């Protein structure tokens, strides 16, 4: 093996190239870690739920919804509940998300027996990671 002049002995051109590429990749990742470090991450989780389309499957009503975490901290076991009132009786549906990370969103579906008129969807609980 002929090391190029002025280079570390035993390190070939090819090895320098892969070191260079590696440094770019590592630099990018370290840069992103520093960016995450510097950007504020203390805002607690804050959820917003948006109701989506409703479709009928068999005798049930499937209501799509999107949950967004506008905060920075991750919410764990985030429980979303929806209810409608049909002829004085309350019909509820709920689902739980394992994780809703900060500044990101998830989608879910609630299923009702009756047509979901006047549906209210809200987050009822979550755990801190």
């Amino acid at each position, binding site marked *: 093996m002929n090391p190029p002049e002025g280079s570390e002995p035993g390190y070939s051109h090819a090895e320098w190239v892969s070191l260079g590429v590696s440094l770019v990749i590592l630099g990018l*990742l*370290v840069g992103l*870690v520093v960016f*995450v470090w510097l950007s504020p991450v203390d805002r607690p989780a804050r959820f917003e739920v948006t109701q989506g389309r409703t479709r009928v499957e068999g005798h049930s009503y499937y209501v799509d919804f999107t949950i967004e975490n506008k905060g920075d901290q*991750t919410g764990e076991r985030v429980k979303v509940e929806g209810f409608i009132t049909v002829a004085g009786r309350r019909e509820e549906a709920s689902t739980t998300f394992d994780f809703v990370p900060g500044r990101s969103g998830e989608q879910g579906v609630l299923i009702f027996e009756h047509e979901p008129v006047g549906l209210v969807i809200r987050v009822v609980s979550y755990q801190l990671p």
Partner: protein
Amino acid sequence: MASSKESNPWYSELDDILRAVSGAFLFGIPLLYTMEVWWAGNQVNALHMALSLGVSLFLLIILDYGAGFRKKKEYRWTISIMDSLVALAVAIVCASLSLTIIGVLHIDLGLENIIGHITMEAIPFGIGAGISDYLVEGQKTEGVDTPRQLAEKKKEEDRTTRGKLHGTLVDMGATGLGAVIIGFAIAPADEILIIASRLSSLGMLLIILTSLVISYIIVFEASFVSESKRMEQRGIFQHPVVETINSYLVALMVSLFMLWLFQTVGTDRSWYEWLNYTTILGFPASIGGAAGRLAV
């Protein structure tokens, strides 16, 4: 032929990098199919990420003293550090790509969690890259040591149909054994179902393609001697590509059997689920199979 390849620094560098990739996957794949590692990625903060990168690099520098991923020249600490940086970068690329392929890493996660996932998964992949010289090359050295007579004997075996059949059976058996060793720990786990639930058809094709490419790399590219030895071929499946595909099919069959054993698939499931779960378990199983074939 091998000597001209080896004297070309670009080719030998490619060989070194592919060896690191092989080691990364061999060691990293069980932890790729571990949801606790994914969750860890959701929970880490920037300090943890920086620490895990630092620890990985430190580990790699230590490992490079005994193993590393390059063919050993004389040890020099400056070169060792530079090699460790390369190994870490290889681990990061492998971890990111494989997390993306199995659908764990997606853009909706947000920047912090994406980086968290990558830095956590890069640790096992990094360790694998750091000991790849031992993992991949270790078995090869035994092959190098074998005297010329053994190779002659093998060639002689090749000429007869029985010898060829024997070679093929040995290869297939080794593939099956390797696939069982890696796949058995993963087959009963929920990760298979979770990955399947998130996977698109394109994702499934990507998993198949990746399984084939990585197991090809592990067996045929990661070591020159084994490669040239294998090119001579002693089995029925003459061409390396054909052998890779056949071994992949063996790994798939082993996966299917393990899934059936653990009742993940049964007659009550649709064919689509069978296909999905088998392909997903086939990824680690094919890598295990490749490792098994290395040992032969």
